[in-house]
């Protein structure tokens, strides 16, 4: 009964989305206020139907209704409630339903928070979101229905993949999808602007907060995925240049470019067509990433060969969304005139450089990820792995990092480089000192350069603030008063840039990480990385649906106890899988990381890592997202606010 309700709600959502795709856009074209006014109601209706539908799926999983294929294949009553709920999106059909749910939430968000938008623009934005929703909902309903029934129902479900039984990974998809799908809003704004044939400062002002929100989610999603790989896979690495990881990085790069570009549109009314293109590209990359890599069309022929109709349906949708928007761009964009003018050396110029470099990184990562397929077209087999990405991406990051600190201190329109650099001399000097000191102590060029870059980024991030409060040039009390009065978005930008510096410091630190593999008997002590790792004992612990072999280690340094850690190896009999549960003891500056391996002849295999500054990698991402969130709460950026100001400042 409940699954049928969910199925019905899904069908209802398709119908509403179809109306949402047509009525508002027709209304905006005919300038019919009644049709345009239907837009928010339809978007909210679709959102409610989708919430109901997804609620039914969760309910089926909670009550262990194994007559639902999706529940039977991905859940079991032996699992804790939390994993039964998260199992609903731990599979193909459920995750696509989640994707659609978030898309409908985006539509609802525009309906709720976009009251200040001109009604024609709002109708078009919601209409475009409706078109995308309608397509993917129709796909879910016809080709990937998560409510399909199984008869007779099995007594027990097949249980979620043990690797997914992890709090970090369980909440990963919703956050990542919020980022991916969140970019549908800037996309819808871009297409709406093309339909209207107009982009103005107000457009940039409206697009920025939505982009920023999606960007924050995507940043957190990528960091969470990387953190999960670090502690769960047991290899001590945090980024593997895997196609799935690259797929999430691509929209992040163009999204970051869009974020900066929207500032220029808002402040200077230039780079408008480029912003529109970036918005389209970012969502296109999100779509490609989700549906080509995640649905496995790329890495397993299996899925495509078994269900060619499904594959063709998805590819058709992608072609329609991406091709349609780019075709519209080709027709409408030439008519959109740029107004703002700027010199190469200026804030705008720096942002253009930022865009060129970010998009180049994106192009390189895309090329590397897709190249094996391209080579296959020419009957050549090759692999593109981490060594390629390190060699090609790092050289592009160097100028990007250099410009990241210089850009914010340049004035708009026209600037001189020298005074700007002089304002940064202290940051440059400290960064250089740190680099030289690191090289003298470590003799590791990559790490030293990385630490210098990190210092440059973190100090440079606050250079604009230092400049704004005229530190040391006016009395400190006055500087303090200016500091407090700075808008939150200035703080947000500085913090986000500093966050990048923190991540760079983590990456530099991790290049110094050391690891070893040893076989040890209980009672044995291993000397490694300046620590004494004593294997105290081994014991078995039963879990809810697994048994764990746990090792107890006592880590000490010069006789003083540092930590007691308990890495374990979980064996899931139902799924015939073993999963390592690594033990990580951190003091933020370094992680002591132990992974337990199999047992042979009374000895267990231990993988020991001393991971220098590992937490900085993800802390930096969190700081970046926090900076973004801080900008988002700035009143000047708030979505409702621009209408009042926009009405004054922007001639129609």
């Amino acid at each position: 009964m409940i699954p049928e309700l969910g199925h019905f709600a899904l069908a209802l959502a398709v119908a509403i989305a179809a109306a949402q795709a047509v009525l508002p856009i027709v209304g905006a074209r005919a300038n019919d206020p009644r049709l345009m006014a239907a837009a928010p109601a339809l978007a909210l209706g679709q959102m409610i139907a989708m919430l109901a539908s997804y609620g039914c799926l969760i309910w089926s999983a909670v009550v262990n209704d194994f007559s639902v294929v999706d529940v039977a294949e991905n859940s079991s009553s032996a699992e804790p409630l939390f994993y039964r709920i998260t199992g609903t999106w731990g599979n193909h059909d459920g995750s696509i339903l989640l994707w659609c749910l978030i898309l409908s939430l985006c539509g609802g968000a525009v309906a709720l928070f976009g009251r200040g938008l001109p009604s024609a623009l709002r109708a078009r934005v919601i209409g475009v979101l409706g078109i995308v929703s309608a397509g993917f909902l129709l796909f879910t309903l016809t080709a990937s229905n998560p409510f399909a029934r199984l008869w007779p129902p099995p007594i027990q479900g097949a249980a979620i993949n043990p690797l997914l039984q992890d709090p970090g990974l369980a909440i990963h998809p919703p956050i990542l999808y919020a980022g991916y799908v969140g970019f549908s809003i800037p996309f819808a704004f871009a297409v709406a602007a093309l339909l209207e044939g107009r982009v103005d400062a107000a457009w940039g002002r409206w697009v920025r907060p939505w982009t920023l929100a999606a960007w924050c989610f995507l940043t957190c999603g990528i960091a969470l995925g990387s953190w999960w790989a670090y502690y769960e896979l047991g290899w001590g690495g945090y980024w593997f240049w895997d196609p799935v990881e690259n797929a999430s990085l691509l929209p992040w790069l163009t999204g970051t470019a869009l974020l900066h570009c929207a500032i220029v549109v808002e402040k200077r009314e230039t780079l408008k067509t480029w912003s529109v293109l970036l918005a389209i590209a970012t969502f296109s990359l999100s779509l490609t990433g989700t549906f080509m890599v995640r649905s496995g069309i790329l890495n397993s022929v299996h899925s495509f060969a078994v269900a060619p109709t499904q594959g063709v349906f998805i590819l058709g949708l992608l072609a329609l969304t991406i091709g349609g928007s780019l075709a519209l761009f080709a027709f409408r964009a030439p008519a959109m005139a740029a107004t703002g003018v700027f010199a190469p050396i200026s804030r705008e110029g720096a942002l253009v450089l930022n865009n060129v470099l970010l998009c180049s990184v994106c192009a390189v990562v895309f090329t590397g990820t897709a190249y094996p397929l391209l080579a296959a077209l020419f009957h050549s087999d090759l692999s593109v792995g981490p060594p390629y990405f390190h060699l090609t991406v790092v050289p592009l990051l160097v100028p990007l990092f250099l410009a990241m600190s210089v850009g914010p201190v340049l004035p708009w329109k026209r600037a001189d480089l020298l005074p700007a650099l002089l304002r940064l001399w202290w940051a440059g000097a400290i960064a250089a000192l740190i680099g030289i000191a690191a090289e003298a102590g470590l003799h590791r060029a990559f790490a030293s350069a990385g630490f210098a870059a990190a210092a440059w980024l973190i100090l440079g991030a606050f250079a604009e603030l230092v400049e704004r409060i005229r530190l040391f040039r006016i009395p400190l009390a006055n500087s303090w008063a200016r500091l407090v009065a700075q808008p939150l978005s200035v703080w947000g930008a500085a913090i986000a840039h500093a966050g990048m510096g923190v991540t760079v410091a983590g990456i530099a630190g991790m290049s110094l990480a050391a690891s070893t593999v040893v076989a040890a008997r209980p009672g044995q002590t291993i000397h490694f990385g300046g620590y004494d790792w004593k294997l105290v004992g081994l014991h078995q612990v039963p879990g809810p649906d697994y048994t764990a072999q746990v090792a107890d280690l006592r880590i000490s340094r010069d006789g003083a106890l540092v930590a007691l850690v308990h890495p374990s190896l979980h064996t899931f009999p139902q799924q015939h899988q073993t999963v390592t549960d690594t033990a990580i003891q951190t003091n933020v500056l370094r992680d002591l990381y132990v992974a337990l391996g199999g047992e042979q002849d009374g000895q267990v295999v231990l993988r020991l890592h001393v991971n220098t500054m590992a937490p900085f990698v993800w802390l930096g991402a969190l700081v970046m997202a926090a900076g973004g969130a801080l900008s988002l709460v700035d009143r000047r950026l708030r979505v409702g606010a621009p209408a009042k100001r926009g009405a004054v400042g922007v001639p129609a």
Partner: protein
Amino acid sequence: MDATTRRRLLMAAPLGIAAVGSGLFWTLLARMQQGTYDPHALKSMLIGKPLPTFSLPGQPPSAGFANTDVTAGKLPALVNFFASWCVPCIEESPTLMALQAKGVPIWGIAYKDSVAATTRFLNTRGNPYLRVARDADGRTAINFGLYGVPETYVVDRTGIVRLRYAGGLSEDSVRNTLAPLLAKLA
């Protein structure tokens, strides 16, 4: 070219790039459907080359053999890597028996397996091999560029490897791939 045309072309460039990209991708998918492209098909470096040099001890009671023994015998011939612990090897054994019954010479190499386990495997599943050699440490397999077991290599009349088939042979694959090739080489 005037400024307007140039601008139009510039704005159409993204669409063009996307079109080219999807065209290439579509070609790939079409080839996948026709079966002319298979991302899991493991390409062998041996195709068009003679067998790598090897000389392996026999699995008693069979005598061992070397690459020169294969090329000196009846050609075209098959060289088949197998192991008692591999499930697809068990599944392909009826197919190999049928090939042997048709007079196709098959040289067997037991990959990383014990004498006892191989004997048991041959006794229960049947022995389609002309001779069975043992590659206990798997080094000869690496020289073949082996990914896993089972794998079957087709050697033509001049001693050149013409096909590597990764995975268990089935009636289907013999009918569609192996038999036509053997007929052509005969």
